[in-house]
């Protein structure tokens, strides 16, 4: 669509450093026994940040349905390191689910994203329903829904894409394909080469791009966003990304991946790629970079301190938010206990 200028790239790089440092921090907290669960965004950052960049520029308004690996999308949508760390430590004041949910799960209408479920792919029909509502209400919203290659096998995703295509709904399907569904490699998930090849079966465009390349991500997402905004219907985009860490902090990837495979994955680190690009454009040097890293660390250190000191949520309101009328769950509880 257009080339991202060096200043924009540097901005994205700054966010990417923050997201990467944050991701590393939550792993540390997990290994200290403080964060119960981590699913890493490392290797996916360019796809996440580049797509949000395109949405924010080309959609009049947009809403993201994310999945558990989307720390980059959450941060780009305004979740702060403090918010994220309160989530990983399950502390009081966690803003999107009040620590009812796994980290990065919950919703913020103001920040424009929602990540409800752990049953992968179930949010894709929600996104389509959200887009249907935009169409019925004649709103200019583009709905973006992120999911992994593992989720792409779910039947619900087929049902959702089919319906969205029939009604030309303003939704874009964004698959972050890192080639592993926990331990199962892509060859055992599908008999075709690319997830995006399925698009033609729904009668919609499908694109496979290098999801570690910020410019490619930006271009294809921008194109899909414009198409959705103009009422021409959905697009399926597959970002080829890398996951060089285990599936989650409970996983041991040495049982199914070779060190060589992981090493090859690391070669496609989007952070390194963007860094090289910025160096070649002459907008980044060691001084700027160490300043960026220092700033990120400072933010995250103080956020970690804050989150560690924060109390756990009080159990008093555990019965709230079951129904609109809180007394229903309380009455039933009181009546039966």
């Amino acid at each position, binding site marked *: 669509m257009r080339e991202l200028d060096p200043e924009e790239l540097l901005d994205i790089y700054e966010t990417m450093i923050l997201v990467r440092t944050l991701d590393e*921090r939550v792993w*540390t907290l*997990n*290994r*200290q*026994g*403080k964060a*119960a*669960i981590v*699913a890493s965004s490392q290797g996916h950052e360019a796809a996440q940040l580049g797509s949000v960049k395109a949405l924010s520029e080309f959609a009049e308004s947009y809403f993201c349905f994310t999945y558990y690996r989307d720390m980059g999308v959450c941060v780009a949508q305004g979740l702060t390191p403090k918010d994220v760390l309160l989530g990983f430590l399950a502390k009081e004041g966690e803003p999107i689910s009040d620590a009812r949910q*796994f980290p990065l799960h919950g919703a913020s209408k103001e920040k424009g994203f929602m990540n409800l479920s752990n049953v992968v792919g179930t949010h894709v029909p929600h996104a389509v329903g959200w887009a249907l509502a935009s169409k019925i209400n004649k709103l200019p919203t583009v709905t973006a829904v992120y999911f992994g290659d593992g989720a792409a096998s779910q039947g619900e995703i087929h049902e959702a894409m089919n319906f969205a295509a029939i009604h030309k709904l303003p939704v874009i399907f964004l698959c972050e394909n890192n080639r592993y569904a*926990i331990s199962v490699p892509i060859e055992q998930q599908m008999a075709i080469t690319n997830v995006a090849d399925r698009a033609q079966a729904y009668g919609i465009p499908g694109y496979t791009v290098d999801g570690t390349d910020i410019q490619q991500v930006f271009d294809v997402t921008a194109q899909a966003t414009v198409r959705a905004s103009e009422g021409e219907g959905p697009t399926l985009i597959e970002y080829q990304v890398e996951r060089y860490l285990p*599936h*989650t*902090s*409970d*996983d*041991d990837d040495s049982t199914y991946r070779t060190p060589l495979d992981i090493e090859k994955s690391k070669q496609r680190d989007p952070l390194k790629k963007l860094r090289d690009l910025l160096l070649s454009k002459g907008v980044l040097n060691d001084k700027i970079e160490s300043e960026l890293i220092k700033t990120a660390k400072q933010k995250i*250190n103080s956020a*970690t*301190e804050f989150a*560690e*000191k924060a109390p756990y949520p009080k159990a008093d309101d555990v019965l709230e938010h079951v129904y609109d009328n809180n007394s229903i769950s309380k009455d039933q509880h009181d009546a039966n206990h």
Partner: protein
Amino acid sequence: MPAIIQLPHVGESVTEGVIGKWLVKPGDRVEKYDPLVEVSTDKVNMEVPAPFSGVILRILVEEGDTIEMGKPIAELEIDGAQDNPVEDEATENEEEIHFDREAERRARVGEFLEEVRSVGPTGSGEGGLGRPDVDSVFADDPNDPSVQGEADSINSERLSPLVKRMIEQYQLNPEEIQGSGRDGRLTKSDVLAHLEFKEGRSNSRTDTSSGGFAEIKGENGGQSDRIELTSIRRTIAEHMSKAVRDIPSAWTMIEVDLSELVSWRNQHKHDFKVQHSVNLSYPAIIGWFTAKILSGNPTLNSSWAVDSIKQFSSVNLGIAVSTESGLIVPVIHRADEMNFTEFATKLDSLVSAARNGTLELNDVQGGTFTFNNTGALGSIISVPIVNHPQAAILTTEAIVKRPVVTESDAIAIRSIINLCLSFDHRVCDGHDAGIFLSSLKKMLEHHDFSSILN
């Protein structure tokens, strides 16, 4: 300040780790979260991060050592500037696991190993400690039939919960009662029949207004005499039976804070008595308010008429009076049109007439709603029987001082009364009853009482 660095618990079912390569040496400066040493467990390989910023003083374990989680691995001089380190709750809270020694119990029902996190939230455990052997749990009951809640044969001496309660309440001997249930079991109706029989033969006093089962105070222990029914007793019995039989009644109660009223009454009762020669009594006050509310909201001032509901334009308030010969309900006609003094005077004269046996026929006819001060003898809750064919009956219970949480969340001693209402559910619903009671409550709590004396 020197601090010991421990091998952290990693939150899985692992208890120890093997020390790998040290990434720091004594004298090195480390920042909080910097990696210190590689450790491998049977689940994960990890780098132990520095819990605080500072300088490494000593290294306490060597490469290749197998170390229990929580044991010290290094010593570090903490930088003075930073805050007190946050306590590592995970380390503190994870106690050693105490296995239940009741092996037999465990084998039968399995055991919930609450302390052990056998798997992480998204997987990782294989086997582990947390899963009981499900098959063995049910092994001794392979043919659990999913059938209805009744055994084939019953022990007819086993009393139902209700019968047991009634037997205790009325101090009956179950062996004296003829059972009509399966295999001669005692049922509720057997006990009621027995009570009726006993009642007929005893010279005890009953208070039928309290609803439910008549309270029997047998003066002769197990023995009883046969007492002929008086006509008033017979009338009460028939009337009550009819009410219970015909009226699907529902019951509700509201709690009212009478503190304001109590203090107001205390100020004025002397003058009132002097001026009007009747007491400024609570029944008079509450009864008068009741009549006022019924006149504005006549849903409860009505009667079921099979194909319609009769709603009365005047409030004729029946007043339940306990007399030597039994319950009697004189009526204050057009109570809603009276000022308070008229009402209190009429109430006083009717109660006296009832007790002296000088009521006239007209005094006991035409009631549209009944009022009963059951609190006179200290009762705090009653379930009254609706006075057929009226639609509702209200009881005022004893005023009791109780600690109450006020609107400002303070605790105060307040004078509290319960008002209980039984009503004919054919005529109206709980909603109407609720509106009636809450209006009455509002009046009794917030009214400008002095105005009632004008």
